[in-house]
């Protein structure tokens, strides 16, 4: 009897290996000659069982290797390349199981044919078939769309996105904006998408100020990529950009350099500052809650809320009219230094050292916050950030602001948005909050009013329809409760030291290594449905990300802030809704 030493050509892409353990959760497959498997390819194999229906085991390739079989020594490679030693190049792929259907955890049989999963089989392997609403996130390595389960984004079963990666290469903000674009434009959320709002904080450069400008470098290939994902390539249609007022400019023009039209300035009036109790947000340093002087902060806040009266843009306290933040600070410090009024402002049991610590910090904030808290501009001029009344996408530019002012703006804006949602009491319409450098606002150590707001959003935002899309260089430095509450975790290129931290435990070892050399535009997305993070590339933004890319501005950006205010509205009616009787 003779039998042929060679296998008949295998249909499919390979066979399950028998020289390494095949387990229900991970197995190796030898790749047939003439075929190949690359990382992230989706494969499927079947296991026949004696007394029941066959089990389909699907998985994602998480490692591939090639070696010379028949070579014993490293130097044998030269003899092999020289054509004297016969050897076979054998490739093998490690497959991490993503789905076992029906759920009957048996290992695949060594020798079983492994097929490349395409079409419905691929969708089943990646659980896309179980997703009722699928938001396209980008292309897999195989050039086929990869989806996000909308249930885990809009709060139905989970919410919040955490994006980590080195700044500059990881394209965290671009991915966050692409995700928003996809949510708004894919039609997956149906009517909710129309009403859903986004609040984006721009912390670096003027990158995000051109979301409503088409990208002049958009080519047909990129358009085709968008089409493949079921999206039109275009800019965000409805964007409102806010920037802080210019320093020292009494007219309050927005402080931007590249975008000249369609930018509104935002600030708070002294009256709002006092009435809305915004003072604690001035003291937003991480460890301030533990300091003694926070007692003073709260009693001064209460005092301001009780006694400050709006007076022609500014406020008047104890009969003194204050026309700016600096004046307010000076007045408070003066009152605190006065033995007669100190206990009235700071409470009776406070030591002089504590009062001085407060006063020192308050005086330090004058320079940073003077341009944001105003008493010199017309009261009826719209100046507040309110996503409910703003466009679909609201961009708040922070990049020109010093650190303390950034924290103040983020803290106050998020609090007012969150309180508004709390009052509304319904999850719809959704509000997406995009915040980069989350480690600055919600650091792992210490506590601050801003961190409390962010924690509130992370823990209760899901039911209130506030979805936090947080980005940070290092997830290990962000408050753990925020990271753990994020249903969707995204990783771009990581720092090698950072990649080994337990926060990235969801990445299998091979992907952790790959994250060290991920190209810009490549992200690893982990969602609760799928046990393996998916590697994807999202398309080049169809909107401008810098002034050099910006195409023609949309016509509505030409409007100025004064035109948006109704010239016929009655003075003092504060925006004037239709329900109010105008006179």
């Amino acid at each position, binding site marked *: 009897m003779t039998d042929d030493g060679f296998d008949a050509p295998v249909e499919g892409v390979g066979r399950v290996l028998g020289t390494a353990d095949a387990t229900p959760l991970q197995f190796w497959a030898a790749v047939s000659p003439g075929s190949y498997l690359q990382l992230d390819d989706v494969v499927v194999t079947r296991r026949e069982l004696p007394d029941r229906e066959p089990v389909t085991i699907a998985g994602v390739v998480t490692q591939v290797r090639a070696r010379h079989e028949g070579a014993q020594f490293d130097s044998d490679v030269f003899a092999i390349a020289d054509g004297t030693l*016969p050897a076979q190049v054998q490739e093998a792929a490690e497959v991490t199981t993503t789905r076992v259907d029906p759920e009957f955890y048996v290992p695949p049989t060594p020798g079983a044919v492994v097929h490349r999963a395409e079409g419905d089989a691929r969708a089943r392997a990646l659980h896309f078939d179980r997703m009722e609403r699928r938001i396209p996130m980008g292309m897999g390595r195989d050039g086929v769309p990869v989806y996000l389960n909308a249930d885990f984004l809009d709060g139905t079963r989970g919410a919040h996105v955490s994006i980590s990666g080195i700044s500059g290469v990881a394209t965290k903000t671009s991915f966050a904006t692409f995700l928003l674009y996809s949510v708004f434009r894919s039609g997956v959320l149906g009517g909710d998408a129309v009403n859903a709002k986004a609040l984006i904080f721009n912390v670096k450069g003027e990158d995000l100020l051109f979301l409503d400008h088409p990208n002049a470098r958009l080519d047909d290939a990129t358009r085709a990529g968008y089409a493949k994902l079921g999206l039109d390539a275009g800019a965000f249609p409805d964007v409102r950009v806010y920037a802080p007022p210019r320093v020292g400019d009494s007219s309050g023009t927005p402080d931007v350099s590249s975008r000249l039209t369609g930018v509104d300035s935002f600030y708070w009036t002294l009256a709002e500052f006092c009435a809305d109790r915004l003072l604690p947000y001035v003291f937003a340093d991480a460890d301030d809650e533990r300091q003694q002087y926070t007692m003073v902060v709260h009693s001064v806040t209460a005092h301001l809320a009780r006694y400050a009266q709006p007076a022609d843009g500014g406020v008047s306290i104890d009969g003194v009219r204050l026309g700016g933040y600096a004046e307010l600070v000076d007045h408070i410090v003066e009152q605190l230094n006065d033995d007669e009024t100190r206990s009235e402002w700071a409470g009776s049991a406070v030591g002089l050292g504590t009062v001085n610590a407060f006063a020192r910090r308050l005086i330090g904030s004058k320079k940073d916050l003077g341009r944001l808290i105003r008493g010199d501009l017309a009261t009826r001029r719209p100046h507040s950030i309110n996503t409910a009344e703003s466009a679909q996408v609201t961009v708040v530019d922070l990049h020109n602001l010093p650190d303390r002012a950034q924290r103040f703006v983020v803290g106050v804006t998020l609090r007012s948005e969150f309180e508004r949602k709390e009052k509304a009491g319904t999850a719809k319409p959704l509000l997406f909050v995009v915040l980069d450098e989350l480690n600055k606002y919600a650091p792992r150590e210490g506590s601050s009013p801003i961190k409390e707001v962010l924690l509130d959003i992370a823990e209760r935002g899901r039911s209130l329809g506030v979805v936090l899309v947080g980005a940070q260089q290092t997830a290990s430095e962000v408050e753990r409760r925020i990271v753990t509450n994020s249903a969707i975790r995204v990783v771009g290129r990581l720092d090698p030291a950072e990649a080994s931290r337990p926060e990235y435990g969801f990445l299998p070892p091979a992907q952790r290594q790959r994250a060290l050399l991920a190209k810009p535009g490549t992200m690893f997305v982990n969602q609760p449905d799928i046990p393996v993070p998916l590697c994807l590339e999202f398309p080049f933004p169809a909107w401008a990300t810098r002034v050099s890319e910006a195409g023609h501005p949309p016509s509505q950006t030409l409007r100025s802030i004064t035109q948006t205010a109704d010239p016929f509205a009655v003075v003092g009616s504060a925006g004037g809704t239709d329900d109010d009787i105008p006179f």
Partner: protein
Amino acid sequence: MTTPGARFYVDGWDPSYGASFEAAATGPAAPSSAQVETDAELPAVDWRAIDVRPGVRAPNVVLLVDGVRRIDASIWTAEEDGGSFPGVAASYAAGVVRCDLERGAAQLAGARVGRGLFTASPSAQEVVAGSIRYPVHRVSGTGELAKLPTAVQAPLTALEVAVSDAARTDGDLLVVDGPLRSRRNLPRTLGYIKTQHSQYLDARLTAVVTGLASGQRSPVFRVGTAWGGWSWYLRLPVLAGAPWAGIVRVECSPDLDISEAVELADLSLVTLPRFASTPYKDPRAPQNLIPIAGLERRLRALLGDSRLLHRALTAAARTGTTRR
């Protein structure tokens, strides 16, 4: 105190393989009984080492054939008359390596595995052990156990011929591991003998052979035995050492003219040294050629795991799957 004596050399081969020169029981000085015709290429008085002839190029494709065999189990049959015959269940495999020197690729161009139950028992039936079949190869004579392993050689040689036929192309050179024997009629074929059992040449001509430098050959001579033919010695690249270190004997068909034989000898001199193995990688270096060593490894792997087969045979014997 050591007295100055003859220099000594350590044989390159691993001792378990014997020595590369074994002049068998007749002793190293005793000449082979075969008729040797030494005047074919050069007159015997004129014998000298021959270098590579200028202008001879190695063929682009060299095929190397080898076979391996393994006894999986020794068995005893129970005959109806109460007697018993020994037998062996053997696996054997033959393969061809196609060394495409131009492309720099050595491939297994064909490999076949055969198995058989070798016994003189008249009643033996084929053995089925698991998914493996051992068809009966009936051995004539008394079939003592000691002689059975040599009985495997015939089907193995047949298998080698079959695989090498399938892989031939024009202009190639086929190198057979071992003497040509029944394969003398294959065209452009060399027999490659790495172990020297007989001394065909007289002492003076032997000195020419042991005096060969690396990459030189002896003149072609003719061995007049039944399996004889044109033959020459060749020294593979080897560090200076024992007189017979790196010496192999190559033979070709006796049906060829002397000029064709000399042509093949020149061709072997440019082809074979390239395949010589290195000592630390191969216990039989340099004679055991790299492609042959690689092929043997592959073929052994094709034979299957011996423990597994032994277990399957034992189980088959117990359940009586030996069909009667």
